[in-house]
């Protein structure tokens, strides 16, 4: 982003000299300050900007504490990321410390969602001591729904010290009705902004010094209906006019579109050089002395602009140095229409001259805009090729797409660097169509048909390359984009193939491409379950990215590395990975590095596993403090899942479910394989709550079955299915469920051991032990338990056992009797003791059974099946299961047989 242009967007325009003072409107604006939004909605030329600037200028005397941040919007801002970037920048003009890291986040490859950005921004804004106003001028130029949504979000959460002002030509898609009803809206509309007859007189006679008679003022006021732009143009036409009454009479009696009519008049009254200047500079968005000279071929551009400003000829300064100006929009539109009508053949030339000036001054975006307007496509293409790297780095893909789409296809075909760049931008924007065609077109220039090395005869078919360095990297870039395409299609083998090609083709010190390719390889290996290869690839990728100076992405890869180590049961290494990354992030401190929030979530998960719930909570808190925007897009999701598991460990199952629901809503579709989907987590909570049929529904919806082919991607879900089957066995006692569960577990164990996923193996062994226990086979349970303990102890697992609750407590008691891993078992039993909320087995019932529960208990002692019992009791099956679950809980048992036995012991039947 060129800084002179940026500065002009943030500049607070001063009111024009000798502007009409409009106290009644100023008072309304002042009164509206305590509301949320001031909306000034009126057509072009109604004096919106002037009014606001006069209002702001008045504060200096009235209330110096109130500060204003101004943002003048352009058509090009109609992209959410760009808009938010400017928004944050505008706010930072009055509070430079606000939202550190937000701009960096917005510029990164995976920017946070608008809500995350705005939340972080709003949190910071709430801490500002003094009131302030954010002014958005020309809001009608933005019509992208995400921007309206962002602004709605902002309004809903507006801090009390903040006020928003929107100036627009049409009502915005914001909840105006609601704001009006709640008294949160201050509105000024066209009818308010019109000059009253008194104001019109003040303008014409005082500001413009015309000294007109009352009749004449009235005639002008009537004809223009108080439209300020009309009165301004009329005044300009009248200055030095030889026949004022004649002019006014003619004007009053005319029907013509006022702006056209009067601009004609104004132009006729100007000396030829001025007229020439006005018409020719009408093609420019912004006016600057040297630029105007280049376009018009006239010297003294700066002086000319200053003179126009003094003469109130619709020229607005864009900075205090008076280096840049712009025409009032309406005036520029009319001038341009005039130019088109008078000298259409000139227009392209003028654009070319403007483009050349911008190019010489390294303002490529503007140069491209003018080249396209001049239909000088060759030059535009050259410029786009030059601009591409910087545009990609600053995430301005939308703009690049717009440019390239304006270029003729055959131009792209002879420009391989541009063509490949286009493919890259398409991919980055998620548009797969057309990518392959572009890559093939480019490849033709790299692999000419055998034996033919010279250019084809026709010069029109000659290859054009502007960025030679980029051309040399093309083979690697093309392979990289093919890998990206394959990944987007979900084609793992193809991804690996092309990513390997990149590493072959690319030079040793092209760290960016090497890092990217290694990352893709990592993803492909991970999805296929080859964790060790994935870890190697990710680690290599991160090293390359660090060498390329891309620290943020290097840190991001850590999440994958640690996750893999956790699955492999290497918890200590996982923790070290996070801690090292945090150190690296802290070393790069200011602003906070992207990914920091994620590191804390990872550390929290590790702490939870080792049953340090206090530390786990602390880490999550610290993650929140960093702010969601300092995490990758998946951070809100991961945080909530971690918190849900923490709640579960604390016994708050309902709380856990609420968080899991929230997590589901925040899930972001990305390329990381979603190996532990939220729905499976929820199913596990349901099982703990005894909601077995809900869990079954989940399994059915996911299409999970015991005879499924097993894959790493669905390992967690299949494990969850095994749990569902075991729970079913527990409540219904059907042998089939147990057989299926054990069969599935055996297969899962084989696959996990083959894939060296110790973490998964431990869980499987735990379930196998519990399965044996449910059948009353204690020796059979001890074997897998012993193996699980052996694997888990060195890594420091705790909750993988403790989460299983009372059944595990009973098993561990047995293990203690048999002298298995005595110290570890003691530690786990102690942890369970703390977690236990059930009374010891032989102390009678602390909590008596309800009447209903006794009825169910009586039937448990019979031969009735679950469905039969439910029918007899006239309850639904889920309700029955809830009752039985509560009964077991109160009796301190885990199976129907045991419940009956215990009830007999306690004489409950």
């Amino acid at each position, binding site marked *: 982003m060129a800084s002179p242009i940026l500065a002009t967007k943030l500049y607070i325009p001063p009111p024009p000299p000798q502007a009409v003072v409009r106290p009644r409107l100023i008072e309304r604006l002042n009164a509206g300050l305590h509301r949320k939004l001031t909306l000034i909605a009126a057509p072009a030329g109604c004096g919106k900007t002037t009014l606001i600037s006069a209002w702001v200028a008045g504060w200096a005397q009235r209330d110096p504490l109130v500060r204003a941040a101004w943002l003048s919007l352009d058509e090009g801002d109609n992209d959410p990321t760009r808009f938010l970037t400017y928004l944050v920048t505008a706010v930072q003009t009055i509070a430079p410390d606000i939202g550190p890291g937000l701009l960096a986040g917005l510029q990164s490859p995976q920017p946070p969602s608008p809500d995350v950005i705005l939340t972080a921004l709003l949190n910071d804004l709430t801490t500002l001591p003094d009131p302030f106003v954010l002014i958005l001028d020309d809001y009608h130029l933005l019509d992208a729904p995400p921007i309206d949504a962002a602004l709605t979000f902002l309004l809903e959460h507006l801090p009390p010290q903040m006020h928003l002002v929107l100036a627009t030509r049409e009502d915005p898609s914001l909840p105006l009705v609601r704001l009006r009803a709640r008294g949160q809206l201050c509105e000024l509309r066209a009818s308010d902004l019109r000059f009253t007859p008194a104001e019109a007189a003040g303008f014409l006679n005082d500001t413009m010094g015309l000294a007109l008679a009352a009749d004449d003022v009235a005639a002008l006021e009537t004809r223009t209906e108080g*439209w300020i732009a009309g009165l301004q143009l009329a005044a300009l036409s009248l200055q030095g006019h030889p026949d004022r009454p004649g002019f006014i009479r003619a004007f009053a009696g005319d029907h013509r*579109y006022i702006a056209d009519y009067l601009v004609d008049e104004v132009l006729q009254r100007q000396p030829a050089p001025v007229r020439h200047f006005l018409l020719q500079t009408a093609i420019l968005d912004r006016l600057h002395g040297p630029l105007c000279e280049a376009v018009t071929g006239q010297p003294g551009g700066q002086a000319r602009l200053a003179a126009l400003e003094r003469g109130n000829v619709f020229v607005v300064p864009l900075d205090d140095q008076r280096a840049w100006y712009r025409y009032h929009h309406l005036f520029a539109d009319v001038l341009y229409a005039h130019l088109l009508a008078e000298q259409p053949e000139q227009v392209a030339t003028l654009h070319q001259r403007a483009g050349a000036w911008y190019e010489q001054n390294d303002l490529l975006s503007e140069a491209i805009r003018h080249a396209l307007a001049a239909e000088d496509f060759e030059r535009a293409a050259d410029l786009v090729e030059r601009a591409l790297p910087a545009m990609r780095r600053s995430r301005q893909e939308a703009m690049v797409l717009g440019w390239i789409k304006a270029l003729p296809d055959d131009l792209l075909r002879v420009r391989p660097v541009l063509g490949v760049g286009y493919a890259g931008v398409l991919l980055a924007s998620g548009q797969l169509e057309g990518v392959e065609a572009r890559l093939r077109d480019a490849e033709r220039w790299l692999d000419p048909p055998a034996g033919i090395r010279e250019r084809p005869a026709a010069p029109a078919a000659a290859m054009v390359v502007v960025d030679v360095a980029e051309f040399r990297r093309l083979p690697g870039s093309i392979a990289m984009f093919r890998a990206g395409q394959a990944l987007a299609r979900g084609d793992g083998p193809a991804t690996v193939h092309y990513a390997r090609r990149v590493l072959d083709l690319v030079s040793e010190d092209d760290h960016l491409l090497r890092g990217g390719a290694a990352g893709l390889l990592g993803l492909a290996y991970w999805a296929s379950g080859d964790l060790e290869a994935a870890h190697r690839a990710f680690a290599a990728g991160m090293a390359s990215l660090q060498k390329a100076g891309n620290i943020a992405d290097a840190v991001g890869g850590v999440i994958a590395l640690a996750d893999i180590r956790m699955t492999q049961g290497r918890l200590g290494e996982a923790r070290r990975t996070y801690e090292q990354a945090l150190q690296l992030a802290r070393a790069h401190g200011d602003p906070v590095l992207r990914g920091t929030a994620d590191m804390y979530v990872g550390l929290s998960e590790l702490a939870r596993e080792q049953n340090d719930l206090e530390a786990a909570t602390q880490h999550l808190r610290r993650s929140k403090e960093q702010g969601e925007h300092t995490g990758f897009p998946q951070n809100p999701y991961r945080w909530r899942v971690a918190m849900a598991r923490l709640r579960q460990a604390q016994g708050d199952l309902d709380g856990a479910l609420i968080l899991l629901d929230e997590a589901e809503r925040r899930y972001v579709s990305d390329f990381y394989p979603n190996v532990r989907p939220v729905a499976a987590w929820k199913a596990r909570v349901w099982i703990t709550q005894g909601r077995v049929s809900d869990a079954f529904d989940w399994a059915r919806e996911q299409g999970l079955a015991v005879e499924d082919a097993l894959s790493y991607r669905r390992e967690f879900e299949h494990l969850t299915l095994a749990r569902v089957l075991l729970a079913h066995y527990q409540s219904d006692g059907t042998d089939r469920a147990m057989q299926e569960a054990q069969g599935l577990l055996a297969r899962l164990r084989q696959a996990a051991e083959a894939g060296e996923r110790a973490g998964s193996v431990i869980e499987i062994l735990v379930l196998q032990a519990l399965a044996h226990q449910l059948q009353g086979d204690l020796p059979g349970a001890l074997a897998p338990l012993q193996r699980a303990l052996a694997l888990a102890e060195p890594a420091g697992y705790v909750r993988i056992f403790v989460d299983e609750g009372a059944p595990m407590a009973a098993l561990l008691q047995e293990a203690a009797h048999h002298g298995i891993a005595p110290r570890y078992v003691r530690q786990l039993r102690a942890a369970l003791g703390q977690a236990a909320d059930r009374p010891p087995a032989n102390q009678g019932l602390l909590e008596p059974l309800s009447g209903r529960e006794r009825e169910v208990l009586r039937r448990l002692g019979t031969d009735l099946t679950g469905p039969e019992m439910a029918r007899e009791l006239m309850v639904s099956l889920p309700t029955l299961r809830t009752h039985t679950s509560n009964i077991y809980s109160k009796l301190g048992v885990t199976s129907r047989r045991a419940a009956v036995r215990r009830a007999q012991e306690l004489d409950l039947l």
Partner: protein
Amino acid sequence: MSETDTAPAEPNEAGHYAIRLQGHLDARGAARFEGLTLTLEDNGDTLLTGPVVDQAALHGLLRKVRDLAMPLISVTRISPGQAVAAEVQHRVEASGVDQGLKKEMGC
């Protein structure tokens, strides 16, 4: 002549529209609204008539009208026949033939 003669085409496909503005646009106005016929009415209105490719194009036109700050009176869908008639009328007036005819016929 019914102005709301329903065209059989789908609303999202090409249709013909008549856009009525308060105030007279001149030749430059015609250049702004390329492809539409511009008729200046005696009551001070301008009528823009002609084919509009689809809804998106229609909204683009309305945006141009918005930026003129000329009051928009109405937007009406018309039949192709009405659009052609407007264009013929415009050409006749532009060529001055009708003035000549009126003179001859003593109007």
